[in-house]
């Protein structure tokens, strides 16, 4: 059974998961959400190592751990640790593995989580390594789609915004390739999905099309996944303002889209979505963020051998 094989495992990249494993994590999350287990991880300690600040991810992991009875130690930025004094990541992990049962790491350098997993004899969970991976985000995105739509197959997903640098988009598109999905990538020319991913998806027989015009495809979409367009990606602030205005969505979208469309966003948003959409049943981004709790509980319980 797939479940038992999670014990002691690291969770570094969504690419390490088979379809069965993805579905298994989602089913454990569902069980924990409908039947909370406040002492499941009693006596277990999570070391939460945030070398780079990310308040929402850090709090989500801490809340997940505490709601299943576990304890949390750690730091929220590297300034306060010996890392600033030049200690290698390897040495830091070698020390901390004796203080805890599982490690969650966030780091600005790509590959830092994989290296930490090699250093540690206890499970390591990647909470974001630079522009590379953030697997629990991808899992909570999948969980949200499953909960909102009741299925992962036969869906059409649109990704909108910064698809060039958007880590969440790259990982979710790859995860969705395990299922029968069609994908639209909707972005300005300068922020198109990297061709490597398009080729990879085509290799996996996933129909995917690129466009810069949301209106022309809105009617097809079951899910619209919106991402933040970051100002620093644009050398010219005027260009940024232009893109921002062109890719902002509001209630007028609902007039031209499928009635059941669901709008997702990894948050924080900076103006991509009009707050007037928030109270529509189509807006799911806050529920999406809340889904991080059962997903992270499931991952923690699985790697610690407390869920099957």
């Amino acid at each position: 059974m797939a479940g038992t094989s999670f014990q002691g495992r690291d969770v570094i990249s969504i690419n390490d998961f088979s379809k069965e494993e993805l579905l298994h994590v989602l089913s454990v999350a569902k069980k924990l959400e409908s039947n909370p287990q406040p002492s499941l991880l009693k006596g277990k300690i999570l070391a939460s190592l945030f070398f780079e600040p990310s308040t929402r991810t850090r709090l989500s992991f801490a809340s997940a751990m505490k709601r299943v009875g576990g304890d949390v130690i750690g730091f929220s930025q590297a300034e306060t640790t010996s890392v600033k004094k030049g200690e290698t990541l390897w040495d830091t992990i070698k020390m901390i593995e004796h203080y805890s049962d599982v490690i969650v790491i966030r780091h600005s350098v790509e590959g830092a989580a994989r290296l930490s997993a090699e250093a540690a004899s206890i499970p390591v969970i990647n909470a974001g390594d630079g522009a590379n991976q953030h697997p629990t985000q991808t899992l909570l995105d999948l969980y949200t789609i499953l909960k909102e739509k009741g299925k992962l197959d036969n869906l059409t997903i649109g990704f909108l915004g910064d698809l060039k640098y958007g880590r969440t988009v790259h990982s979710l598109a790859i995860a969705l390739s395990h299922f029968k999905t069609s994908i639209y990538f909707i972005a300005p020319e300068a922020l198109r999905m990297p061709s490597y991913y398009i080729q990879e998806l085509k290799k996996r027989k996933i129909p995917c099309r690129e466009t810069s015009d949301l209106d022309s495809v809105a009617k097809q979409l079951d899910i619209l996944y919106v991402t933040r367009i970051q100002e620093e990606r644009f050398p010219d602030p005027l260009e940024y303002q232009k893109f921002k205005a062109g890719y902002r969505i509001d209630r007028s979208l609902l007039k031209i889209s499928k009635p059941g469309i669901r709008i997702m966003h990894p948050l924080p948003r900076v103006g991509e979505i009009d707050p007037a959409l928030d109270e529509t049943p189509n807006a799911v981004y806050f529920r999406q963020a809340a889904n991080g709790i059962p997903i992270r509980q499931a991952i923690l319980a699985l790697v610690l051998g407390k869920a099957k």
Partner: protein
Amino acid sequence: MTDRPPEYKISAIRDGTVIDHIPAERTFDVVDILNLRAHPDVISLGMNLKSKQLGKKGIVKIAGRELTKEEVDEIAVIAPKATINIIKDFSVIKKEPVALPEHFSNIIRCPNPNCITNKQKISTLFHVVGQEPLSAACHYCERVVEEKEIVLK
């Protein structure tokens, strides 16, 4: 082989190894991989020789040296079409194409400047994901490196 260009003469060796069909621009990388600058016996190098297969190729002849499996694997990463000829008494007694290993460790640099392997002193590791042209994914940052981007460590 018919594609040996008769117009070039690179002095033959009596006993040793000939590495042929190196992409011309990788000739000196082969010299570096095998640490030939310190080799005490005869070495002859040819570069930018005509090749039907590669356009321009390089060839390296090393007297008194056999290659280990690790060395051949390293050459395969930068010269996937290379052939290794074992020479005894001026004749080729064995000729073998190199074979790309599935994984290779500490041969090339990761081109991602924000990769942990470029920030701290650790070995690189790559997993081959495509052949002809070669592409390989960094074990750490997952960046996929194309053949033309490859830089030795």
